[in-house]
């Protein structure tokens, strides 16, 4: 396709993404200011509040300077990899995040693979059997899954498969690939179930809509085989399904927090919850920044893949 169109499209998207990240980073920085009580006390945490410690905190966080300058300091540090010091532990933030990141990533990926790998085929199946028994069962299941909060599902899974049936371990993360996979199966399932429900409903709707279009009837009327017709509908529903998948990846990140808490996994999620409860602002800011970046990158990739799948997007202004 037209290289110039592509270039302008990607640049526009990159620009928009960068703008969003910047705006959000501003909000993330501002979190410090919504904590009740004095900022200095919050930043001191459990340390005693003596004139020396207060002065030290003021200096470290540039609290004597205007808000915007503080923000710039913070941003500058962040870009250079200095994500501050944890109020709770006293250690540097970046290493503790780095240590927990792999586990979270594993669970999220595992859960997403389950959601997409099971969700899309189920959705397609439901659409092909529209209105009949199979469809009703699948859709009902999807609705229940969508409404089920991941922590409730996680608990249920724990109860049934770990406590009662003893198929999976109740806690722990395991060593080595296979052991880890086994340990993470229940959390991944809990994570993936709600997303799967959404993907099923969404894929089904997209497929069903394509199947009712005129071009499908015309394809049948001129003698294309059943397989060809289904593949027409499938390929054309890819586009909305892709968008949905991108958004679902985003929500999976949210749900990860809940699932990690339920299964007591030492990942980024539990780190976030702990620091929020403790008001360990630097850690919260760091994790929030990381997640924002991640989500923005995912959205960008989804947009690009969308444009690859539907060339008409390149011609429209907003790609809506």
């Amino acid at each position, binding site marked *: 396709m037209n290289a110039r169109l592509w270039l302008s499209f990607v640049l526009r998207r990159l620009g928009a993404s960068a703008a*969003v990240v910047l*705006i*959000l980073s501003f909000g993330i920085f501002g*979190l410090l200011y919504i*904590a*009740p009580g004095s900022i200095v006390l919050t930043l001191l945490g459990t340390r005693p509040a003596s004139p020396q410690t207060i002065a030290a905190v003021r200096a470290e966080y540039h609290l004597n300077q205007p808000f915007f300058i503080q923000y710039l300091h913070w941003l500058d540090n962040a870009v250079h990899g200095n994500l501050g010091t944890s109020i709770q532990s006293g250690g540097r933030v970046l290493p503790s995040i780095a240590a927990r990141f792999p586990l979270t990533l594993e669970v999220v990926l595992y859960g997403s693979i389950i959601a997409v790998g099971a969700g899309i085929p189920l959705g397609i199946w439901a659409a092909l059997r*529209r209105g009949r028994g199979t*469809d*009703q069962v699948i*859709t*009902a299941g999807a*609705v*229940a899954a*969508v*409404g*089920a*909060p*991941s*922590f*409730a*599902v996680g*608990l*249920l899974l*724990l*109860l049934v498969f770990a*406590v009662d049936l003893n198929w999976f371990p109740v806690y722990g993360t395991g060593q080595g690939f296979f052991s880890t996979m086994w340990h993470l199966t229940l959390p991944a399932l809990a994570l993936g179930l709600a997303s799967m429900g*959404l993907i099923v*409903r*969404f894929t*089904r*709707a*997209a497929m*069903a*809509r394509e199947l009712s279009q005129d071009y499908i009837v015309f394809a049948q009327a001129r003698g294309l085989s059943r397989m060809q017709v289904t593949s027409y509908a499938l390929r054309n529903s890819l586009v*909305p399904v892709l*968008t*949905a998948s991108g*958004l*679902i990846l*985003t*929500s999976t*990140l*949210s*749900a990860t*927090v*809940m699932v990690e*808490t*339920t299964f007591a996994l030492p990942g980024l999620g539990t780190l*976030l*919850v702990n620091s*929020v*409860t403790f*008001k360990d*602002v630097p850690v*919260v800011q760091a994790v*929030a920044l990381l*997640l924002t970046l991640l*989500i*923005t990158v995912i*959205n960008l990739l989804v947009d690009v893949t969308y444009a690859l799948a539907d060339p008409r997007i390149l011609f429209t202004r907003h790609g809506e």
Partner: protein
Amino acid sequence: MSVAEVSVLRSSEARQARWPAPLVVISLVIVALGFTAAIFSSIIVPNAEQENLLLGISQPSWHHVLGTDELGRDVLAMLIAGARTSVLGPLVIAVGSMVIGNIVGLISGYFGGWVDSLAMRWVDMMFSLPALLVAIVVTGIAGSSYAVALIVLIVLFSPGDARVVRGAVLDQRHRPYIEAARLSNLSSKRIMTLHLWPNIAPIALANGFLDFAFALVSLASLSFLGLGVGPGSPDWGRTLSNNMGLLQSNAWAAAAPGVAIILMAAAMNVLGDWVYERLEARGLEQ
């Protein structure tokens, strides 16, 4: 669950599933029970939170249909008492989100231009945020209070409603009957409220039901983590978190609130679809 999915689900015509009547009736019953419990809990179970330390944990029995928790409180009574925050909270969120979202969506869709661009920038940005995470972070740091949680969620959910409503408005805006209304000297306000809105009401209202379902889950998630409601509250999410350790002794103590959450959310989902179908069918041609 993020705002994005709410709108994505709605706009995708996922409504093609037509629920069989029995399922709709069951959903209505569940929702009715939930709301009754929420509104009348202080009358039905005035002593729900009374502890009975002598009794402690017990399995279901005639006296305590779902057993008791470690403080001797009747699990069923706690469930009913918890309905107040667990059901009314999402209602407030859904209504708040709908009000803001509908107004923004109507104005943005009808007038277009820079108002629309600005509004859509805001919506797009909110969409890229995972609502729950933002709620966790803000509620947690700003001092965990129920009111803060409600406000944060209303702010996070309204872009979803705005987008859905705007989409529906754009659909109708260029239709001749709206253009004729403009040509008939009618004021913009009149056109938006009396001509446009009645025709987008089905999708706006159905979206409200979805909002409720997602709000329910989000609030429960927050209270599960210890944010939002206070520590002693019988809120379903809270209770679930408190009773997680009781899985071996009285699984019902943890299962009951979990099941309540799932059932209520699913029921609202089904009802939302049903409401849409009924309202839409009234206005549409054969």
